[in-house]
């Protein structure tokens, strides 16, 4: 499936170093499918031990049905659990705009067709300020022109070329691509010194 652009309302979470344990606590990894993961997104951040809802953008009525997440630096650091992007995707997030992402997390997002794009703090902050006042604002992330547009504003985004290509061409699931080199794989495997 090609992904050239993502359109939707946005949900702000402009914090740094949000780790995968915060995105989904380990006790919710105990399932053998990803089906329920959407329910567990930011679980402990969203409710206290008695089940009372805490203040969190994911609990905020005005950001319900938003599909673009706005974050700060080093988002998704920590564990390799694909459950983290799976939880966000199944919650309804279709793309993430951030200052920077942990590598394994970014790779996991790509593997499941969830674009993560990079922008400057200033641009993200300005956008967050705007949508905090106007939560109904629609954002468009355009991977072709590498721009995000909202209201009368727009800003540039970055994305590593291979990732961008794979979304534009619809090859973000690389299985078929990897399989085409089967003979080469065989030769190299048998020539490994171990």
């Amino acid at each position, binding site marked *: 499936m090609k992904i050239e652009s993502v359109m939707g309302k946005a949900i702000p979470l402009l914090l740094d170093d949000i780790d995968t344990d915060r995105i989904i606590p380990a006790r919710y990894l105990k399932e053998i*499918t990803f089906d329920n993961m959407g329910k567990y997104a930011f679980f402990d951040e969203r409710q206290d031990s008695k089940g009372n809802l805490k203040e969190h953008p994911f609990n905020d009525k005005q950001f319900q049905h938003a599909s673009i997440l706005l974050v700060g630096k080093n988002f998704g650091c*920590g564990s390799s659990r694909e459950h983290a992007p799976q939880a966000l995707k199944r919650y309804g997030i279709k793309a993430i705009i951030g200052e920077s992402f942990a*590598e394994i997390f970014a790779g996991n997002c790509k593997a499941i067709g969830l674009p993560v794009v990079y922008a400057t703090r200033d641009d993200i902050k300005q956008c967050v300020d705007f949508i905090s006042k106007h939560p109904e604002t629609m954002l468009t992330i355009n991977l072709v022109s590498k721009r995000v547009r909202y209201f009368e504003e727009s800003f540039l985004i970055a994305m590593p070329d291979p990732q961008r290509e794979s979304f534009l061409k619809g090859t973000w699931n690389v299985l078929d691509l990897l399989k085409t*080199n089967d003979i080469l794989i065989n030769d*190299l495997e048998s020539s490994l010194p171990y």
Partner: protein
Amino acid sequence: MAERTLYNKVWDKHKVATLPTGQDQLLIGLHLIHEVTTPQAFASLNERKASVRFPHRTFATLDHIIPTENQLNRPFLDQQAELMSKTLEYNVKEHGITFFNSHSGNQGIVHVIGPELGLTKPGMTIACGDSHTSTHGAFGSLGFGIGTSEVALVLETQTLALTPLKVRKIEVTGTLQKGVSAKDVILKIINKCGVKGGIGYAYEFSGAVFDSMSMEERMTVCNMSIEGGARIGYVNPDQTTVDYLVDRKYVPKGESFDQLKHYWQSICSDNDAIYDDVVMIDGSSIEPMVTWGITPGQSIGVNDLLPNTTSKPDDEKQLIESALAHMKFQADTPILDKVIDVVFVGSCTNSRLSDLREAAEIMKNNNVHKDVKMMVVPGSQNVKKEAEKEGLDKIFIEAGADWRDPGCSMCLAMNPDKLEKDQLCASTSNRNFIGRQGSPTGRTLLMSPAMAALAAIHGKVKDIRTFIEI
């Protein structure tokens, strides 16, 4: 870009092709799996009726979810743990994958058993659905964590699509002070380079401090590369590496060993290798380190004060404030003498024989403080056996600590080993993230095994150097 480093050489040796996306297709020489990040990968394979391409290159263990007592009693009390374990057992059988189960005598945390069994060797590419796969870099291999979709790719094609990283050499010179351990070295490195400083880099650890480290110490350092943002951390193999590997279960003997040694030498970084970045640290200046916050980079020397937010930029201010709030600590207070409730000695960072020896040495003829609960969890069945042979278990038990069966345990608390409420835990694990040790309000101080043991005795954070001198 870096040239003639171990990273470049091992990459080139495993490169299958350049893909149309511009990425390289890399062959994975060793694939390690466990129960938590694989069920969906196998499910996708089974759905497509696909088979595992090279089953002899994948090895499985149970570690994350396994209880640390009565491990042989099945079914496990926790039904989800039982289902996850059963699913793995079914899948490895179905696909002909070697599995170290609880009856094998070789079960344990994936990053402890790989090296211990000699599966991990220099010059390999090693992938595992776990971010601490960087541990295996201690042997001069490229070990890195992958997600579940990538686990499926490795199972089905033995390859991954990857973009090469830059290489940063981190040279730690001089000698460490007495009482300062490998854990302190890596906490210092993360503190200096930042938790995001390593994004886009592989770390090559070198210098006199690493030359004189044992393999287990090198593993502790490489293990936490990922906490500094670096997906890969490695040390060039040397005589210490060779000596460690001789006679391990999965290391060939005789002539084949000599041939392998030749390969290992060939992949070492050249003296004139080019790096994308170099960082120098004076080893003698490193103090015993303790984390005070909610990321592994929020650490200080044991005698330092917690930071304040005066004249810090906004984003940093926010990080410090939210960390202090979660930890229920005040700015500008000492970390020394903070009262702790729980001590956890374990995890793939510090649960090997040398770590347990280090902690036992401190515990000997001492008692766990009356208000402290201490848990010691060996990294593998082999570590447990060896430790018991030396009588380490007795030292811990006599001191009043809990001596458990191997597993990840309270490192991520997927089994019953958990913090309660806002307990403060002195932990030898690698992550102090909010909620990591099982309680959303639980609090973690990362430190070395000796420092954790000392904290257990005093019920407070103490400086190991003072203790050694006494």
